[in-house]
């Protein structure tokens, strides 16, 4: 099936089996290997990407359902020469350890901050509840997201 979707701001057209997983399309033909496969059954959140701005598990989304839609992956967060505030915060606050869950968590947090720029701790924790991390104990991740929210607010008011 021929399908077109916008990935990280760029329109991509490709021929792919309609029931191929979005995850495999991203990592294979599109070469976007930042999105990781963890469990492959929607439990761990490692493959989280944004579909029309909303976090989904790319292992449970079929390519045919993405035709005409917009996908944002972790590769789409940074600009050409600078990490996003969120990514910077993860670096500064030690939000990443082994790193396998990090792209998925960045996407879930990015979606949160896009709709709720000043989230409370409970809202932060709820937003990443579908993402499993086995290294950090989550505290550093929560602090990173909070830090990014502050940076963003400071930038906007400054």
């Amino acid at each position, binding site marked *: 099936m021929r399908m077109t979707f916008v990935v990280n701001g760029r329109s991509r057209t490709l021929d792919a089996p309609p029931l191929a*997983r979005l995850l495999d399309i991203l990592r294979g033909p599109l070469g976007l290997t930042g999105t990781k496969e963890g469990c492959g059954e929607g439990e761990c959140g490692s493959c989280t990407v944004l579909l029309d701005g909303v976090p989904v598990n790319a292992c449970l989304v079929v390519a045919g359902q993405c035709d005409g839609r917009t996908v944002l992956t972790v590769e789409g967060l940074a600009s050409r020469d600078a990490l996003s505030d969120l990514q910077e915060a993860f670096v500064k606050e030690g939000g990443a350890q082994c790193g396998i869950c990090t792209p998925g968590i960045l996407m879930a947090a990015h979606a949160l901050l896009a709709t709720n720029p000043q989230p409370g701790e409970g809202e932060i924790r709820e937003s990443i509840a579908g993402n499993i991390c086995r290294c950090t104990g989550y505290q550093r991740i929560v602090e990173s997201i909070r830090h990014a929210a502050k940076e963003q607010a400071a930038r906007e008011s400054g």
Partner: protein
Amino acid sequence: MNPAEIALYPFERPGTLAELCRTLSARAGRKERTVLLAGGTDWIVERRLAPPEDPNDLPLVVDVSRLPEMRGITVAREIATIGAAATFLEIKSHPVLSRRAPVLTAMAREVGAVQIQARGTLGGNLASASPAADGAAALMALDADVVLASIHGERRVPLTQFFTGYRATRRAEDEVIVRVEFTLPRTGAHQVWRKVGTRAAQAISKVALAAVAEVARGRGVRSGFGMASVAPVTVSLPSVRALGLAPSLASVSDEELDAATRRDIAPIDDLRSTAAYRAYVASALVKGFFRELRMAAGS
């Protein structure tokens, strides 16, 4: 089955409900299998666990996730209408539902984390007919009707009569669930969603209770229940419902509630929990809800 094998299934995306109904009718007439795919949160995971199918006899997968007739949430004249392909995230974010049907909002918030909320739908929940389906339990407590469409038009089945057995429903092969409808509980109605599971975000329920009740001058005037994971189907707890309509709620005893709950459920041991634990929790949840009702009834 591995992802490459699943990728081989034929796929169609009808543009309208009428087109979908024609496809369903033609295929059902030829005894060909059709899978209606919404969010895929059940079907895709189940395919992964299933053995490979005969590549020459694969069902047609039909995408219903974006059919306009199956989307959207509306409230008019005290009736809430939710498209079968509306997502849990859309349900959770609906302002009128959160005020008037918080049992549904709370369910949608706990059915899974945001990634699952963004994909999962009530239509999928009802069609899959898992006894652990949170959405089915909440809709049952609201006494929802299921509206099915086919080339012959629409028909309506009360959700309390929709499930006919383990993963079996009254939906015919040539029908599609288009929406659910229910009368909004009155402002001030008692509504509770209690999900007992292992992980706040993604766990499938060990037991879940949805309850909706209205009390006027000490008596129950609306009583709806739905319980997940305690029988081969989502159950409406008919004996407990009857107690919820007691002329004097204050006189309903815990012993009566225990006996009614026991009558209404048939829990089993499985990988998530045990029959004994489920029975205990089911009773405790029901009694907890009635404590609230008795207080409201002024006992």
